């Protein structure tokens, strides 16, 4: 398990990355992060929702209520143009950051 600070710094990037491929609702986003990280990254509702709320207000993602047949209605989020731009910037930053950290720690040679 990773420290809360580390998780907090990456959650926006994770959400943006997942939404780039497909629209998801909140529960599914949490589950996807958990499963794809092999259970290392887990976000409960109380940490996920304020982030979604903030990202939606920033205009990076947009939620809409969808009712599929035989299911309860759910709020699905999709990536906006602005969100795609933010994703690109954050990915660049992330790579640069990771590269720098690796360089400092001398992990590239490994």
């Amino acid at each position, binding site marked *: 398990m990773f420290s809360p600070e580390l998780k907090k710094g990456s959650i926006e990037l994770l959400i943006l990355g997942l939404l780039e491929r497909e629209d998801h609702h909140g*529960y599914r986003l*949490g589950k996807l992060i958990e499963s794809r990280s092999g259970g290392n990254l887990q976000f409960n509702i109380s940490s996920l929702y304020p982030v979604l*709320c903030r990202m939606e207000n920033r*205009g990076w993602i947009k939620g809409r209520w969808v009712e599929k047949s035989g299911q309860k209605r*759910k*709020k699905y989020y999709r990536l906006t143009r602005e969100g795609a731009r933010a994703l690109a910037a954050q990915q*660049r930053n992330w790579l640069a950051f990771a590269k720098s950290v690796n360089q400092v720690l001398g992990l590239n040679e490994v």
Partner: protein
Amino acid sequence: MPDWKTFVADRLHLTALEEKRQRDLVDEVASQIEDLYMAAREDGKSETEAFELASSHIEDWSAFGAELAKADRMHRRSAVDLLAERSEESRQQRSGLGIDLAAIVRDIAYSLRGLRNSPGFTLVALLTLALGIGGTTTIFTFFDQVLLRPLPYAESERLVALWEKMQSFENASVSFANFVDWKERNRVFEHIGVWNQTNLNLTGSGDPREIAVARVSASLFPMLGVEPVLGRRFLPEEDRIGGSPVVILSHGFWQTHLGGDTAVLGQALTLDGVQGTVVGVMPPDFRYPPNMPEVDVYAPVGLFAERWAEQRGNHPGLAAVARLRPGVSIESARDDMQRIALELEAEHPDTNTGSRVHVVSLKDRITRGTRDFLVLLFLSVGVLLLIACINVANLVLARNTSRMHEMAIRASMGAGRNRLLRLLLTDSLVLWIVGGVLGVISAAAGVRVLSCLLVDEIPWVFQVALDLRVVGAALGVSLLTGLLFGLFPALRLSRQDPKPFLVDGVRTTGGLARARLRSFLVAAEVSLAVALLVGAGLAIRSFSNIKGAELGLEPSNVLSVGLNLPEASYPNVPERTEFFTRLLDAVRRLPGVVSASTSYVVPLGPGGWQNGFFAEGMTPEFAGSQPYAEVNSVSTGYFKTMGIARVSGRDFTRQDNADAPGVVIVDTKLAEDCWPNQNPLGKRIKWGKIDSGNPWMEVVGVVDNVMVNGVLQRATHQLYIPHWQDNDNSYYLMVKTRRDPLGMVAAIRREVLALDPNQPLGTIGTMEDWEGDTTRSNHLTTLLMAVFSGAAILLAAVGVYGVMAQLTAERDHEIGIRMALGARGEQILALVLRQGMGTVVSGVAVGVGLALFLSRVAASQLYQVSATDPLTFFLASILVALVAALANIVPARRAMTADPARVLHAE
């Protein structure tokens, strides 16, 4: 299954949010907890276990609520953002439009938010722009409508004004006999006509009343291309001596006095006892003569021409106007009129020797008194606008510098150079456009106020109002200025390497180039302020000269009442003399009256009467050209009433009547020029030349010279003749009163009606009004220039202060080091001042040069002060330099008292 919605709603408190948003969030959280619950059940957990698991996801509900509320508040989007989003959606649906409307809307929203977040900057910038743009738009509206646009007559560029030039008189009105010859002999005009103005008594419909009459040639209306809205124009056969009397009404008179009755055609008006048949009504927007407001009635000039036609030497205040044939230039018209003038000179040497004709475009003639004034105002307000623009550019520059950090973050977040450029440019454009809109709003008020102030300066024919064209131009110029003043700093900023600004605590100096740019702007501001202040100083000196000038009379508490005795009831001198002597006796008996007299002309008032004379024994060089004098016919007591000093001899008496030998009173100027160092009393004068058959008149008195046409006109020779010896129908009753002169009008009206129940009072005024009229335009120039230059100095001071404060603040670090190394406070002060004042001094030098250039425009408006008056230039330079020095000292002192430890610690 538990009711999750109720479960969440009971625990999640989001009262800070909108109700809809609350419901939304509760629904969503409930839906997710339900998903968790369902997943747990599917894994085979019991209901209780699943409930525990799902609800355990949120441990602290109140912290969760606070977190959600915070996230929502911090990033709540404005209506504009939502609009941008919507337009983005629509754009995405119809992609390929090429214009990223959403981004532009968002940029504008961002700019507006930025402006709202720095209210101080916004207020100063917008106020400055609103004043600058509003002032310029106001003055340009006048400039445009008076000077740039054609007159409101058909093909007005072919209209010319004509008047005479006489041997000893540069500008004389047209002799009717000469006009008749011009009309017959010219080869250049399609139409030519004359007009003058008079007041006639209207009787037979209610109280007797004096109305304003324009006497015009029948050719005038066709020449101007105007048709009456009702009835017809004058016929050529009506415009001649002995023609049947007809009149055309102005629209205003028809509406207010005849109730707009269409049955008015064919009815008769009794004017000075003569019945004139109404044949037409002019359109409401028709304005002619251009300088004569509120004409009531038009009448054919030929009806009045009997006396004028006989005497070629009589110039009865007629002005001529003509329409050039197509393709004929003003120069060829001048040549043709020169030819006619030479023919007439040969045919009538006694009256036409040296007589020539002025031909000038009608537009130039009408605007001659307004042109210099408006050009001066326009230049001044333009300078003010420049200062305002520079100030705002400075403010924007300073603001941009402090935004380097923000820009650097944007750049590192991946914003390209074009993106930053667009952002900064949008900022500037938004500011300038909002300023432009505010400016147009203030211009709408400004035009209205100035129209009232300038009502006597702007010829009547121009109806000045803010129009769409000028509003469009103002907004367009604002846009361009915003682009220009925004692009330059934006380019500069976006080109800069943002990296250093990411480091906390870095000094956000703008670099050497920007400091130089701002110094240049400060110098420009100072120079413009100097130029404007010199202009204002000259206007103030000129005005105080005018105010202090000796008029030669005492205008306080003097009332003038026009009285226009109709020819029909008072055809001869004895009846008129009888009326006026009885009236004077009655008025002098009224309580509150100090003295009373009659006068043919009001000094400082409109009109005048000039006549050529010959003085016995006058110096040969003076006799060489036909001398002219301002003539006035006055009664006993005139000089006392007007406060004109008697130098020698006596006043007129009742005995100086038609049976007595001719007498005359002259002014000191005439006496000195005709008979230098001699006693003028007993000398003789007659009208016309030495060989004229006119009787001699003996000089019985000498009085002070009076500035009859106001102090701006050259002093003229003045000659007074007694009212009772010969007289006309129209006189002014002049009354000196103890208290408010206008309070006497009612009593005077009673006395007039007691003598003749059909006799109305004519123009009523006070000598102080007449005096005010002659100085009003100068007063206005002075006032407006003072306002402009005051605003200029204020703006320049704010600008200089702002820039110096910013420059000094940016040098905090350097100054701190200097002080830490042992520099004393005074040395720092000197350092900062030296830098600031260098800029100011070069600005003042350029300003003096600019003022030398601009003051040439002002020269024609100045009275007894040179356009290059050294004192004014010196004082204006010193004043601006002092104000700028003050604006410099404040930041310099702050730098001096700075604690080096604190400054350096801030690193």
